[in-house]
């Protein structure tokens, strides 16, 4: 069976604005990413600022143009698909944006906002009052919310409106960009539980973009770690968490300490700052910050290798694995 979404060697390239004396160059915000998302499954993409995760998501949603590579949705090529054609697919591929309130048009009521997909897709013959009520109930908001404006609701409630809006037309693929950003710890769980429940009920595939590994831990089936526009590790979520292969994954895991002052920290401490995408390091992109760096890392680009179901791009996973064993 082929996957719902097949991303193959995708590059998203941006032109740099040249100054008076300098010529304009290009940067690869996404630099050769391949991954598959199966129908009804959840895929988590984790990375920090500048990793290209949001750019990748927007390329899938047709909001950025992929310069190279292929994005197949049910076998249909999305790259270079004319907007008029893409519009038909927007019923099936929907996106939730980072800023819960800022992604809602401020002068529209919640009812107008969540029934907009029907109007946009020419289905305004539906009973929009009933649809609004159905959608609000589905995401756990009282029907009275229909009359409110975005500035009158909290961040958590706005998130639910975002979910209702995205799921209005029974999509097949939901792209959720930082679904818990700006939410308090006590309601982050609500959001993730809601997504998990709706996935079970509606059977949709979800692509979650986040900087926080903990967010994807419980609701994703597969997870991919991005660094400077490339995937560095990918595999079934449980295995990646249990046995991270790439030192960057380990560093991310360690950077989310548990709230226990006596916890034994298995800390992989990174050095310095993430390099600029304008000056992509040679060899392994991660070598400038890697605590286990070897001479070879600064010259050779690591290829994908597998460890069980987990694939990674690191020359020396065994070296740091031994150190890890020594410290714990």
């Amino acid at each position, binding site marked *: 069976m082929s996957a719902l979404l097949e991303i193959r060697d995708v590059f998203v390239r941006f032109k740099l604005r040249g100054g008076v004396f300098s010529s304009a160059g290009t940067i690869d915000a996404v630099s050769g990413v391949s991954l598959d998302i199966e129908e009804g499954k959840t895929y988590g993409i984790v990375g*920090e600022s500048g990793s290209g995760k949001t750019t990748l998501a927007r390329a899938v949603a047709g909001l950025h143009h992929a310069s190279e590579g292929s994005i197949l949705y049910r076998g249909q090529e999305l790259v270079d698909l004319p907007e008029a054609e893409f519009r038909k697919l927007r019923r099936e591929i929907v996106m939730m944006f980072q800023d819960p309130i800022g992604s809602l048009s401020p002068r529209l009521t919640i009812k107008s906002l969540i029934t907009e997909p029907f109007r946009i897709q020419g289905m305004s013959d539906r009973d929009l009052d009933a649809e609004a009520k159905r959608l609000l109930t589905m995401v756990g908001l009282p029907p009275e919310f229909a009359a409110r404006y975005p500035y009158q609701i909290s961040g958590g409630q706005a998130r639910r409106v975002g979910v209702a809006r995205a799921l209005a037309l029974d999509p097949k693929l939901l792209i959720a960009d930082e679904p818990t950003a700006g939410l308090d710890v006590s309601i982050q769980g609500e959001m993730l*539980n809601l997504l998990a429940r709706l996935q079970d009920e509606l059977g949709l595939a979800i692509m979650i973009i986040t900087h926080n590994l903990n*967010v994807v831990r419980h609701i994703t089936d597969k997870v991919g770690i991005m660094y400077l526009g490339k995937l560095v590790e990918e595999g079934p979520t449980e295995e990646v968490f249990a046995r991270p292969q790439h030192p960057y994954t380990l560093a*991310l895991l360690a950077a989310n*300490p*548990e709230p*226990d002052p006596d916890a034994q920290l298995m800390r992989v401490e990174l050095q310095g700052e*993430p390099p600029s995408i304008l000056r992509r390091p040679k060899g392994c992109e991660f070598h400038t910050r890697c605590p286990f760096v070897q001479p070879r890392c600064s010259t050779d680009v690591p290829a994908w290798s597998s460890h069980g179901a987990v694939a990674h791009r690191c020359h020396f996973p065994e070296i740091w694995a031994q150190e890890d064993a020594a410290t714990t």
Partner: protein
Amino acid sequence: MAVLDIRDLSVSYATPRGPLKALRNVSMTIPEKKITGIVGESGCGKSTLISSIIRLMAPNAKVGSGEVRFKGENLLARSENEMRALRGTEISMVFQDPMQTHNPVLTVGRQMIDIQYRDKLSKAEKRKRAAGMLALVGIPDPEARLNQYPFEFSGGMRQRIAIAMALMAKPSLLIADEPTTALDATLEVQIIKRLRELQDEIGCSILFISHHLGVIAELCDEVVVMYAGEVVESGTVRDVFHNPAHPYTRALLECDPGHIKVRTRNLPTIPGNIPDLVNLPSGCIFAERCDKRHDACAARPAMGTASPGHHAACHLIAERVTA
């Protein structure tokens, strides 16, 4: 002795719907040469508390009662000029957004020399001190970097500069308001570690505000948990995080994703919303969302002692002691 002693502080904001009681009878002490964390979610009153301490309050804010004692003296009774002399020398601040705390058109060196205007040193000496501070917060090649402008630094570097500037005058108290929230997690841990080392070296007290429980656990000695404008629990990090006495603290710890090791499709949450701070409920502020709610909760609980140095505002403590 405590550097900062806040007693019974109540602050409200005038709104069209009536006074919004952002802080109610808040008391806490910030001990000398320790890092105290304040943890709480949106609407808990963290920002109001900080603005009351440094007396930079919104025009519609009103102090209802209480004292903010800094080294024994009530800051709320000080004149504006006296406060200004205190800010940046005795009490310094680091803010959440490192991209907006620096003047974009002046070099970092110029800004770091400017803030030493109170000291009678030559410019070269001031510059040397500035370079020394940059080195201290972990910025490589500080001499050269003094000539650069803020936009030439990354977010993490700028936050380090902000910390360097805040510590320049060797303050007795550093207030850090979510200083790492805007940064990536891998940079966050680097800065947290540096802050801990600097505190040891300089010997100041730090008031560290964060919603990130893991960071509080790692960095702080003491912790104060706030909810909807009240202090609900305080004590050493070990006491509070290992034996939370208030149901809110316990629920919050359970919700922290770093806490949940076993894979689950049903994550813990705290159902409900914080109460309306204009029309407050009469009893315990957390009662509506509390899973341990009982008859006593209709009355507002007093601060009780769970163990020496560990306090919580919950009826269950008093009942446990008497039982």
